[in-house]
């Protein structure tokens, strides 16, 4: 079932602002579209949203499908799903990607089951490749949807050989954001939807934005310190490394229990579960409980003076050494390069 349909990325926006995930996905979307030789499009739904098109073009979209209307002001599952289902039916993209955010994971399944197509959740990578089915049928250039399963114990590559579009939600922070090209233009397609046909099912009575002091979940990089940091005062070196990397500060339970840092920073089973693009564990031995809260991070670096520390068993990169020497060196090096 060959298709020359476009690659679509759903552009999420909230509080009048485009969310990072919809922009971030354009880098992977661009790669896939180029490999397939098709156009890359962003889809944006809401009230007065066409003004966001410029940013989407500058980050790689060839086209923006904009569906506007005052009835679409606030995100609503049923309405947005209806719009997206109709647009997909009309324009027949071959790939539709969403962020694996609360919004994306609310919207995508509603659309997928209406279209009766497959959907792969929370992908950490996407590729284009061929697939040979057990019955011998060969499929050319289809979407490989790569994701962890069983609590991160395995990674699976999923394909949708027969149904189109191929749909996936993609984890935030695992793909580098696309470069921005100032002044790049594209085509705006104003999508026409009969507003009176939109369902009116649920209503938002109240919404509040929580400004967290410590936003571990939204951080692409987390620098975490453990008991090995040694003292409350010495935690400054963890904060300093986080600061030069633009990262959030995390901690193990042992560090929190020892009073080195506040509980808001705790990562692990009884703290926050995180999966940033990069997790740097400093002086953390890596108990099962801590690992459960961070082992789905895309890349893990462990700095520890004990080569036997269990954290190394899940780290992609290990530095065996004294964090009091290694981290200051890193900080200095990063600062120096920045000046150059």
């Amino acid at each position, binding site marked *: 079932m060959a298709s020359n349909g476009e690659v679509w990325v759903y552009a999420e926006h909230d509080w009048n602002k485009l969310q990072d995930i919809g922009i971030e996905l354009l880098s992977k979307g661009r790669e896939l579209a180029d490999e397939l030789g098709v156009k890359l499009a962003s889809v944006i739904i809401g009230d007065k949203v066409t003004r966001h098109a410029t940013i989407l073009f500058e980050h790689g979209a060839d086209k923006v499908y904009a569906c506007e209307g005052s009835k679409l002001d606030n995100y609503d599952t049923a309405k947005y799903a209806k719009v997206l289902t109709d647009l997909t039916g009309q324009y027949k993209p071959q790939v539709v990607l969403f962020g694996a955010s609360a919004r994306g994971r609310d919207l995508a399944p*509603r659309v*997928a089951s209406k279209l009766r197509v497959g959907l792969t959740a*929370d992908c950490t990578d996407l590729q284009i490749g061929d697939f040979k089915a057990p019955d011998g049928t060969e499929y050319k250039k289809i979407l490989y949807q790569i994701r962890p399963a069983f609590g991160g114990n*395995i990674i699976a590559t999923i394909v949708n050989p027969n149904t189109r579009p191929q749909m996936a939600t993609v984890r935030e922070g695992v793909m*580098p954001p696309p470069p921005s090209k100032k002044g790049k233009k594209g085509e705006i397609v104003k999508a026409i939807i009969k507003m009176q046909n939109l369902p009116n099912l*649920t209503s938002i009575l109240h919404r*509040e934005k929580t400004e967290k002091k410590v936003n571990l979940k939204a951080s692409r990089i987390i620098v975490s310190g453990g008991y090995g940091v040694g003292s409350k005062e010495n935690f400054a070196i963890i904060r300093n490394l986080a600061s030069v990397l633009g990262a959030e500060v995390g901690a193990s339970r042992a560090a929190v229990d020892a009073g080195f840092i506040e509980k808001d920073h705790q990562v692990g089973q009884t703290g926050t579960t995180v999966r940033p*693009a990069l997790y740097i564990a400093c002086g953390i031995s890596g108990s099962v409980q801590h690992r459960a809260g961070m082992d789905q991070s895309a890349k893990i670096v462990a700095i520890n003076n004990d080569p036997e520390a269990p954290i190394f068993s899940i780290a992609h990169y290990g530095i065996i050494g004294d964090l009091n020497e290694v981290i200051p060196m890193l900080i200095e090096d990063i600062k120096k390069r920045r000046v150059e």
Partner: protein
Amino acid sequence: MGLEILVCMKQVPDTQKVKIDPERGTLIRKGVPSIMNPFDESALELALEIKEAVGGRITVLSMGIPDAECILRDSLTLGAEKAYLLTKGDFAGADTLATSYTISRAIKTIGKYDLLLFGKQAIDGDTAQVGPEVSAYLDLPVVTFVSDVIKVEKRSVVVERMIDNGKQVIKAPIPSVLTVVKARQRLRIPTIDGIVSSFERNVVRLGPDDIGADIKRCGLKGSPTRVKKIFSPEGKGSTSYIEGNLEQMSAEFIDVLKHKGLYRR
């Protein structure tokens, strides 16, 4: 008021205890205990609280191997009135679309419900798709990531829901589908009375014919997605060590950041 509440649940391997065969990259399921999906426990607890507050009846529904009856039996001891298990070879190997189709067929067959509760996701697949997909098949509204039920009225329910950077209070009509995050309360433990009175109730097993399902849309046959390959995550047991003197380590570390697109500004 008397609400009819349905709780859909899944029996899952305790993923915390799953081990990997390092050579074949497959899961070693042997010896791993099966449990009620923790988010479904929250959904059941929430259903029990609603029942206590406004009255009603709870039905539990699952799809899986015959052994999944255990979690339904547990639900009966806690106060669920009815239990159904979809268990037939035709249902095996289902992805979320086929699962949702099958569950929606079952729901249409077994009764009319005011509230349909699901855990937000199962800890083995982690998709969070079945609740919303079932709601689409049933043409019912869905509210995902519900953390609490604030008010239940005759024709509507007011719930609190967690979103990426905040929360919302949503009013949804009855009937609606709710998917539940971890509740404030842990699932209660059964009382002796609860256990004894559950003996009178049975788990009803359902096959495709019982629910008028098209078997071409169930199980592996009805699943548009295919698993192409399964492998162990990179990094587990394949740590690359950054070595050398401090300057070398530091330089290599920064190279890693650059390579991963994490070194900005």
